[in-house]
């Protein structure tokens, strides 16, 4: 077990200077994720235009892995169609847990997270932002199906437990 494989330069860089850090107001979808193990939380806001995730911001408190993962995610999903975002969500899940369909498609910079799978206690840190994004999109889909605008007060609570 070598922590250099976990704390790669890309991870340390995104932890020091997270991209897309902040909050969109108004936003088309939002969610808050919690990691009960460490008390960390991640708040995520995004906008959708022409079926694409056009903008995303995140803030909150977290370890290097969770901050870097959210930062890398924000770059990877911006400009992607919602269908592609869902595909990416599953690919990253496979990458982090080392499942059967691991790395079928090129994941670019997100590959910096591949070291996480050697540290089972830290997988939830890396996956928290993805679960939170997925919850925000599902909430938006459910809300638009019911023709109710997403309410900030009714944010879905996400837990990785």
């Amino acid at each position, binding site marked *: *077990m*070598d*922590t*250099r494989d*976990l*704390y790669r330069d890309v991870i*340390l860089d995104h932890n020091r200077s997270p991209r897309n850090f902040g909050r969109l107001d108004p936003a088309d979808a939002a969610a808050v994720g919690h990691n009960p*193990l*460490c*008390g*960390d939380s991640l708040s995520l806001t995004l906008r959708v235009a022409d079926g694409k995730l056009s903008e995303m911001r995140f803030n909150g*408190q*977290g*370890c*290097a*892995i969770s901050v870097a993962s959210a930062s890398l995610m924000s770059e990877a999903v911006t400009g992607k169609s919602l269908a592609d975002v869902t595909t990416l969500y599953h690919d990253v899940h496979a990458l982090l847990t080392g499942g059967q369909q691991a790395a079928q498609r090129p994941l670019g910079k997100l590959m910096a997270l591949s070291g996480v799978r050697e*540290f089972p*206690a*830290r997988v939830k*840190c890396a996956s928290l932002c993805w679960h939170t994004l997925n919850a925000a999109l599902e909430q938006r889909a459910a809300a638009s199906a019911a023709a109710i605008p997403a309410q900030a007060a009714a944010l879905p609570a996400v837990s990785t437990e």
Partner: protein
Amino acid sequence: MNALQPVASDDYLDQQGALIPERVRADFPILARELNGRPLVYLDSAASAQQPRAVLNAINTYATTTHANVHRGVHGLSQAATSAFEGARETVRRFINARSTSEIIFTRGTTEAINLVTQSWGHAHLGAGDEVLITHLEHHANIVPWQMACAARGARLVAAPLTPAGELDFPGFAALLNKRTRMVAVAQVSNALGTVLPVAEIIALAHQHGIPVLIDGAQAIAHQGVDVQALDCDFYAFSGHKIYGPTGIGVLYGRESLLAAMPPWQGGGDMILTVAIESSTYNALPWKFEAGTPNISGAIGLGAALDYLDNLGRAAVSRHEQRLLTLATAALQAVPGLHIVGTARDKSAVISFTLDGVHPHDIGTILDAEGVAIRTGHHCAMPVMTYFGLAATARASFACYNTSADVDRLVAALMRVREVFG
């Protein structure tokens, strides 16, 4: 050394009466293992202490020679199991100096012991507008059960303030005692900060107002001499696994007059004298509060752990831990950007800290890779973390088997964290 002969207490002490940790370490088989390819440095005893061979052997001997259900059979095994189980209760009584074994109730741990009080005593004595006074540094186990009882009875949970050093603000605490206060429930030692609370003064003041006091002794039992009669507390809760015993066993001490007046909290076998469909009569203390088959081997293991600690000598262990605390507190100053959280004058051997620019979780992972096991997170004490404006800290805690070499390894591993994160 013959493994069957108890080791004399003197064998653990040098000529100055100081504990020789290398001798103690030899009693703890797990300390011989490696963690991620390096000799294990275990600095997480405040979460769960390791078990000496004396405890493991007692459990194994019970399981291989004696096991049967207690208080039931006339056969020899059941009688032997009952006397071993009740013998462990007597060991607990002696260890905390209770008046009688009627006051020693076995539970799953501190959490269940406190829940017993909140559910039995709380539901009988709390009413609308009443208050329960705790402090801002309690473990969740001494917050949430009271919250639940207060919510059920329309009572209010009030928390006493702390000083910036993480000590109890005693005048602030005293000012919160009033005619509505029905119970004071406080930790003897903070699990998150190591602060030792002035429980004797707290108890004396509460008793002046006629208010009973529950002490959460989970973090104190292995490190302080605990004498419930000298303290004059009304309830005292602790866990076996914080004092070198097994998990799943703990103790509630209760003043006999209070326990006798409390209703049972769980119904079932062993807690009754007679049962008819219409109604039942309850067993005497302490069994009134022990429904169902208890954790027999856990209680026996706990008894062995208390005997083990007494054989080492509680005072010698305490001096050893305080020496390590002083050593580590000084040594950690060498780590750039490290801040100790909780700087009470009277501290148990627990050091909570933060490192500028590094999340405690990342500290924990890198230390783990270096073979050093510490706790990171909110330590099940989120209100005290919030009080200090922190989401989490890293925490190193020391026990009888830790050495100054462990402190050196901790500091070296933290330097490694600084290398990675700059």
